[in-house]
């Protein structure tokens, strides 16, 4: 019997042939925490009596969720993490570097790696063919100390996306469409493995967007083959040596196959308060939006900034709609400056935030008021997510977000492209 991507990676890393349902202890290639899960990791690390890290070079603490910190308590949490990094010799990604998942994709994740992060969107690196999954602070503390953890080999769902995406339709629309189809728990404990002609030709940026939201269907990982797109991306990041080809076997076993015709996907939105509560943009046209937020580990990459700039160029935001844009990393920010996107954003009336999670999780920098609606390019629209349980969050692609910013109400990007 052939192997799925998940079975293949976990077999290689645990050095035994495994299949779905097996439990393995696997060596971990990269482990990290961020500033809202890190302090509890430090507490657990100390409670366990651990003294040192198994692999300093591949242990990272990211300060990105509250970056820069909005209050003294979070500033003190940052001190805890800086001290831990200094004392134990781990790597530290301080305020201003960007969102953990974007930095992991740009600089660290390799095809075939196993990556554990104390953040649910660790799945993002699945776009590069890494078995990357989120865990809690205790699990990551143990991984920091031992360099390994236990994992159950997940069953896999094959998602085949074939055909050419219509104009105005992007990777974000594919993943929102899929989550609407299978539900917020449609892939719980399982691996979502993506393939098909649309995926084969999709940029790494798009793959990372889709992998990022695998968790919104409950998946343990969202995996992509490592192919020429992967190789080119790694070469562009000056780490071509990190490339290895990786593909599932043709006779691998899946619990289910879902086929999606790319040509039939339309711009899609997730309505409040769950990600699977999806609708077509055309059905929500005219819904008033007080804040547009563009960025995050889902859609804060250069390709996203380019789409937004192409739509905002020469336009102004609607006077009743504020626009917040946060490039996902320092690299994205610098390139956005170089390409002139930032000037376009600022001239359109947008606020630029530093590379970070920014407004995504409601702790600062764009908290919503009572009854307000936000259209966001992020991955979650749960009640209370953006700092106010009496507010409403819609999720969509960067193109839909930019079109909405101009009109002040949910707008079909195909009208402005």
């Amino acid at each position: 019997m052939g192997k799925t991507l998940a079975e293949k990676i976990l077999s290689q890393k645990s050095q035994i042939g495994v299949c779905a349902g097996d439990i393995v202890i696997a060596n971990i290639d990269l482990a990290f925490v961020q500033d809202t899960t890190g302090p509890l990791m430090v507490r657990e690390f100390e409670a366990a009596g651990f003294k040192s890290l198994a692999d300093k070079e591949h242990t990272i603490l990211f300060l990105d969720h509250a970056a820069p910190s909005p209050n003294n308590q979070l500033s003190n949490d940052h001190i805890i993490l800086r001290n831990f990094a200094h004392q134990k010799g781990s790597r530290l990604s301080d305020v201003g570097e960007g969102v953990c998942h974007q930095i992991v994709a740009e600089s660290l994740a390799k095809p075939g790696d196993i990556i554990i992060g104390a953040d649910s969107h660790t799945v993002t690196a699945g776009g590069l063919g890494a078995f990357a999954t989120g865990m809690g602070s205790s699990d990551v503390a143990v991984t920091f100390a031992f360099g390994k953890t236990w994992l159950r080999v997940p069953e896999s769902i094959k998602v085949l996306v074939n055909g050419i995406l219509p104009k105005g339709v992007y990777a974000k629309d594919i993943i929102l469409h899929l989550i609407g189809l299978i539900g917020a728990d449609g892939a719980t404990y399982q691996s979502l493995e993506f393939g098909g002609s649309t995926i084969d030709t999709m940029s790494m940026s798009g793959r990372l967007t889709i992998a990022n939201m695998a968790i919104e269907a409950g998946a343990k990982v969202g995996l992509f083959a490592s192919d020429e797109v992967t190789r080119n991306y790694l070469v562009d990041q000056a780490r071509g040596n990190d490339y290895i080809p990786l593909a599932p076997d043709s006779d691998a076993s899946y619990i289910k196959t879902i086929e999606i015709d790319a040509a039939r996907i339309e711009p899609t939105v997730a309505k409040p308060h769950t990600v699977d509560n999806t609708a077509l943009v055309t059905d929500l046209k005219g819904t008033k939006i007080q804040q547009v937020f563009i960025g995050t580990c889902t859609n804060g990459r250069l390709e996203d900034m380019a789409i937004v700039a192409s739509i905002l160029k020469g336009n102004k935001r609607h006077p009743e709609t504020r626009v917040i844009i946060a490039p996902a990393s320092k690299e994205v920010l610098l390139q956005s400056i170089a390409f002139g996107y930032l000037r376009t954003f600022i001239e359109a009336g947008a606020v630029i935030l530093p590379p970070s999670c920014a407004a995504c999780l409601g702790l600062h920098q764009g908290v919503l008021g009572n009854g307000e609606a936000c259209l966001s390019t992020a991955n979650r629209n749960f009640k209370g997510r953006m700092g106010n349980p009496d507010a409403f969050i819609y999720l969509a692609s960067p193109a839909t977000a930019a079109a909405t910013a101009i009109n002040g109400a949910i707008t079909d990007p195909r009208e402005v492209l």
Partner: protein
Amino acid sequence: MLRGRVFKFGDNISTDHIVPGRLAHLRSNLPELAKHVLEDADPTFVTRVKKGDFIVAGNNFGMGSSREHAPLVIKMAGVSAILVKSAARIFFRNAINLGLPILVCDTDKINDGDKLEVDLNQGIINDLTNGYQLTFKKIPKTMLAILEEGGLIPYIKKHGEIKL
């Protein structure tokens, strides 16, 4: 044997319902954070819950974030077990890692306010209010070993490593 009353919740209770991001500044002040447990799902929960009580919910309990604070504040509130039709993967693992039993069973017939008895060893739940008995899905062996030691850190302190 665990005994307590039921606090019933629906489907898709997220980690933002349990401990929202706006309270991130309290994450190193756990007693203060725990005062807000499940605030966005039921603001009266924290004032009514007593030691030993149960949270009973529908599908996909704990969806969302990896924040271990979510099961931690539930445990700190005195909840003795969470009974769900299904749970999100990371939340499930986090709850076990904290020594908080999370049991998968058909929760449809359990009502808010019911009195329950849960026998973890026998795998049986007795609803004393309506006389209904049900069983819960076996906890996987690796996780049961962690749960029985009171969580992952106590397990590691005792065994020195993870054993399968």
